């Protein structure tokens, strides 16, 4: 009932917007004709309102994602995506007081009102809400809720340690929702020699975990694919000074190549530590990551090549002997992308995840633990083609792991009907041999989705 009411509110809003659009256009033309007769101050207020209205942007979107066949383990059996969303964003750049104006300040807010018919809730989320200033010509500070991204991977992350929302990714929401916001301060210093970003995250934000209510997954406590009956207890690090996460990036260009080194101290974003096996209590162990990346034109063949490497130091299990906590590891990524005539574009990545102290892992494993390889390999392939003067985009993204023997494909068609309406259809399809591998565990969640968006 509630969600229906919300849908009506949202639909009413979109109608209001589209109608007011028209009336604005009309009143503008009337004004311009009569302009000579109207006193100065009478024209002011509609302009001021128009200006405020003009500075608010966003979209309204409806999405539906029926499941193919799938398992009957989750809250709803027939679909895993059914929602209406209203996103509003506004930027404000104050011109006074003078001391603040000299810092070139910018305040930005972006919020989503989501009527989620799957969870039968109406939810409001602040996606971004930050102030950005330049106290010095070579320094920026961005404080507040923000989306943070760095690194070279395409849907694969090594040194990008910031929170992700894989649930959104797997059910077919827009790519925007793969990144979850962080409450953080980002301080940037720029110079020709080297530029530095320091991100301070006082409030830990985990990835949006797959918990079985919307997507079924391999529950290692139950030893099988589980849905809503899965009942893990998640313990997040307490909000205290010593739990503040810090991520840094030093970067510079060497000719046409972009190079960067990264360091991070904080926590795993996934609950890869078990606190109490019988109580199914999991936690986010301490983590440090050190890495580097390079990106630039591929010599002689054309296109863009990239490489990234990272060492994950599992600080609470450095020896690898504790079977309840993820081991340290190395991650390696090679990427290549190039374009071809007629708006074709392809991208390929080769990703290797190496578990360190593998012998300790094997020696300490118990029956029922998820079997793992020392080297997990993953290949991705992206192909994109644009049609109709770039208004229709067809793309296919494939993950394939030869070591896990599983795969995940994401076909998508996005049609920009005009400057305001966009229709997207796609699918999320999982394959595999073993229930416990990253993609095969999601096999019961295969879906097809359709999204219709109106931007303003």
């Amino acid at each position, binding site marked *: 009932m509630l969600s229906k009411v919300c849908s009506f509110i949202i639909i009413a809003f979109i109608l209001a917007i589209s109608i007011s659009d028209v009336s604005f256009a009309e009143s503008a033309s009337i004004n311009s004709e009569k302009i000579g007769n109207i006193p100065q101050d009478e024209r002011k207020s509609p302009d001021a309102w128009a200006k405020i209205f003009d*500075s608010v*942007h*966003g*979209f309204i979107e409806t999405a539906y994602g029926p499941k193919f066949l799938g398992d009957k383990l989750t809250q709803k059996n027939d679909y895993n995506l059914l929602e209406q969303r209203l996103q509003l964003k506004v*930027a404000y*750049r104050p011109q006074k007081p003078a001391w603040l104006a000299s810092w*070139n300040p*910018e305040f930005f807010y972006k919020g989503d009102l989501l009527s989620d018919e799957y969870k039968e809730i109406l939810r409001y989320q602040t996606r971004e809400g930050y102030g*950005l200033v*330049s106290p010095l010509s070579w320094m*920026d500070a961005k404080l507040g809720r*923000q*989306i*943070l*991204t*760095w690194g070279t991977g395409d849907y694969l992350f090594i040194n990008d340690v910031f929170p992700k929302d894989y649930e959104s990714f797997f059910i077919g929401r827009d*790519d*925007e929702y*793969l*990144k979850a916001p962080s409450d953080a301060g980002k301080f*940037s210093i*720029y110079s*020709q020699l080297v*530029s530095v970003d320091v991100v301070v995250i006082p409030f830990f934000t985990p990835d949006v975990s797959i918990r079985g209510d919307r997507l079924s997954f391999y529950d290692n406590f139950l030893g099988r694919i589980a849905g809503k009956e899965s009942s893990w207890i998640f313990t997040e690090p307490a909000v205290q000074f010593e739990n503040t996460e810090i991520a840094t990036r030093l*970067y510079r*260009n060497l000719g*046409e190549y*972009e190079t960067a080194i990264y360091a991070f101290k904080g926590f795993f974003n996934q609950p890869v530590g078990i606190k109490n096996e019988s109580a199914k209590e999991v936690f986010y162990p301490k983590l440090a990551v050190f890495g580097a990346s390079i*990106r*630039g*034109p591929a010599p002689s063949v*054309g*296109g*863009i090549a*990239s490489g990234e490497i990272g060492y994950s130091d599992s600080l609470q299990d450095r020896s690898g002997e504790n079977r309840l906590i993820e081991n340290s590891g190395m991650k390696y990524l090679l990427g290549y*992308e*190039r*374009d*071809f*005539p007629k*708006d074709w*574009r392809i991208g390929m990545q080769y990703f290797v995840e190496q578990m360190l102290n593998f012998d300790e892992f094997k020696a300490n494993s118990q029956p029922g633990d998820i079997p793992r390889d020392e080297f997990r390999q993953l290949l991705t392939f992206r192909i994109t083609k644009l049609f109709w*003067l*770039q*208004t229709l985009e067809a793309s296919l993204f494939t993950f394939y792991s030869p070591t896990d023997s599983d795969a995940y494909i994401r076909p998508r068609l996005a049609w*920009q009907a*005009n*400057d*305001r309406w*966009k229709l997207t259809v796609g699918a999320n399809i999982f394959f595999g041999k073993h229930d416990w591998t990253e993609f095969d565990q999601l096999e019961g969640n295969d879906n097809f989705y359709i999204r219709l*968006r109106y*931007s*303003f």
Partner: protein
Amino acid sequence: MKKILAVSIIVFLLFVSGFWTKNVCAQDTQSGKTAMSDMLLAYYYPQTDAKSEISMRIVNRQGQVRERRLTMLRLNQTPGGDQSYYIYFHEPADVKGMSFLVLKHLGRDDDRWMYLPAIDLVKRIATSDKRTSFAGSDFTYEDVSGRALDEDAHELIGEEDLNIYHCLVVKSTPKRPDEAGFSYRKFWIDKATHLPLKVEHYNIKGKLYKVYETQDIQTLQDTPTITKATMKDLAGERYTEITMKEVSYNVGITSDIFQERLLRRPPRQWIGD
């Protein structure tokens, strides 16, 4: 008899001198290559830097219109050589805030980056194919940033008047037509301003398929500037109209700004809201 002789000598001298003058022009100052070089400088390189607010109307066969509004910053690193570009999209709503950074190099592929604010992503873009449409319009990246002078052979094939303008007509033939994707282009270049007034694009089979036309030229800060132009796709029956709402030269853009920071923190002093 003497008179006839004198007249014929004078006529002959006039004829010869006229011919001689014309010939000199064709070989030296107004050879195809010079005309094209002047055009490239006048069109792509005027002054040291420029800020332009650009509107694009993309009209398809059904008459449906899509609009783009963007701000472009340009800096010449060397006269007639490498350039840096920054492009910020204001409209339509779904691409608002998206920006591009392009470092144009003569002799090798450009470096190009795209910034997607919603996911704070700085993406490096492959640029092997310069014939890709620019922002979904009938202009290609190559039309927007120019082909290097040496990629084509330029031949002055005549002079013609377009409206009030006296034009040189230059035929430019790619040295590697398969790579270029067309067989030749014909330029009508205004003798006074060196700006292109019309460009005909001929496909590999030699058929005219795309026509560029300048609609309006204004002199801004002593610099003749094209403020309105169209590109027509004859087969697709589409066209794109490009309008420069505001152009300012020498606004003080420096080369050190063309870095990743520019994408993540748009320069509001130039691009406004």
